[in-house]
């Protein structure tokens, strides 16, 4: 499984993205993580590289705007089939908005079990493939 961990926007708090990258790698995924402050265009260009899932980590409160842009650009690039999951400080109301727009799963601080998250992402990939 090829998993892209992306940090769009200007926020530099990368601890969460790094821990997910470490654990996904340990679980045998092929992880791509290019560091902080990527533009949605850069993330989509990376996703075109045959990834099975895009994970976005956003902690600045700009998760709705950022995720919308990535989803729209994935679609425009013919990558609408690649599932997108999002992690961050995401209030429940925003989580509903994001799910309605096509985000496959949302992870917040209460999902402290990283192995659980990785397992869940594997499920997301499976369902998208099936």
């Amino acid at each position, binding site marked *: 499984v090829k998993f892209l961990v992306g940090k769009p926007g200007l926020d*530099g708090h990368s601890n969460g993205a790094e821990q997910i990258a470490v654990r996904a790698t340990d679980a045998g995924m092929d992880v791509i993580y*290019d560091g902080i402050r990527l*533009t949605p265009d850069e993330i989509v260009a990376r996703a075109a590289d045959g990834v099975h899932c895009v994970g976005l980590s956003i902690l600045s*409160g700009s998760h709705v705007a950022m995720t919308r842009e990535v989803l729209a650009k994935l679609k425009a690039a013919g990558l609408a089939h690649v599932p997108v999951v999002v992690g961050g400080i995401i209030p429940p109301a925003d989580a509903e908005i994001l799910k309605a727009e096509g985000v496959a799963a949302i992870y917040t601080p209460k999902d402290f079990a*990283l192995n659980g998250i990785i397992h869940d992402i594997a499920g997301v990939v499976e369902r998208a493939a099936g």
Partner: protein
Amino acid sequence: MNGAQMQRDKPWIFRTYAGHSTAAESNKLYRGNLAKGQTGLSIAFDLPTQLGYDSDDPMSRGEVGKVGVAISHLGDMRTLLDQIPVATMNTSMTINATACWLMALYVAVADEQGAPRAALSGTTQNDIIKEYLSRGSYVYPPAASLRLTKDLILWCAREAPKFNPMNVCSYHLQEAGATPVQELSYALATAVAVLDLVRASGQVSEERFADVVGAMSFFVNAGMRFVTELCKMRAFVELWDEIALERYGVKDPAKRRFRYGVQVNSLGLTEAQPENNAYRILIEMLSVTLSKRARARAVQLPAWNEALGLPRPFDQQWSLRIQQIMAYETDLLEYGDIFDGSKEIEAKVESLKALARAELAAIDEMGGAVQAIDSGYLKSKLVESNTARLEGIERGEQIVVGVNKFTTAEPSPLTAGEGIIYVPSAKAETDQIARLKAWREARDTRAVRTALEELRAAAKSGVNIMPASIVAAKAGVTTGEWGAALRGEFGEYRAPTCSASLSNSDGG
């Protein structure tokens, strides 16, 4: 004994890290907080401001006014500080890559208010080293960034000696997973790297250098293991005294004092049963207030609902009250140091110091903090510690009440219903951009052009960037223009991706 007659120590400064949306909204918030008994300001800037972009820059889309207030020019700073007397206020600004610029705007407003520069007190965070390590808000390459750090330190030493130009941060290291020993050693190594650089510049005399050491301040973190944290603070005090004396020959003990502000740990605050966070915040505060010998100069507390979203004014008030109750209702400030002579505390402090000294020596061996970042050593150590911490929680070895133990709970009335977090106005970004456009149209474009030329010349020649920045602030230059002028001279830094140090993966 009559408490009223007793000699009480002055309480530390009470702050709340705050700021969002626009300057006018944040000013209202600050004045409200001050009216409730807050005694200092702690300004949170939005990410575009922290990174030197204007609010209408394509890079700023969606980020304007989100994690702090948007400050694009002198007019915004004026509005932010409206009716707040800069001469007597103690202001902490969480600003790093663009610290010189925000300080220039602050000084410009102080000049307008007629506040003498020598009266200015507060801090600019100005610790770029930890940005490369944990917080990620760097712009320029390390050498250029450190030169800006040095310029602000030297300018303050000359013009605003009461202002602390740098707040060396161990705070963000703990948030990134650092152990107490790592916090001690990495923060002290950062302070040493910057002071060595200032000394090597030859721009400050031996005698004045002691003042530069004395103006260094620190910004630390305090977590739930509060006895260890209390010992960590005592170790910081003793190690800093040692370094100031032995490495820098500072004779005056007052100038060797470890002066620090603190924001207690947010990493340990939980989204599950968030009401419990109120207790966690209080317990964390004990470690930085109980020891008289290692007491914080300024404390800011997070809010109980931070893991849910942005706190409301009520939530910030609840945290401020914790500090006021501790300082004014208890007898804490009537005593000397209540741990002096405790064998248990002393042994722990000594052990932390010994381990930190060994780690400091190892970093020195590598060539100092900057080299230890370049080589990826510090970053990989932090990621390792954070992985171990998270694994401990997952396996249930580290108990987190409400998260991995005691998870059965009554429904909380505190989190029921709508409006339990603050939702900033969606209009903030468009309002901010409209004001910025009007500002650009109203200013004297010739004065702006000249100021930017001088700024670029200063960046290139290596003279102190502050005078040209203050002139630029007064001429109406914007945050994005200042940022771009320096990007033009210094270039922009792209951190190496840490995938390699994260794992054995060849992906990325």
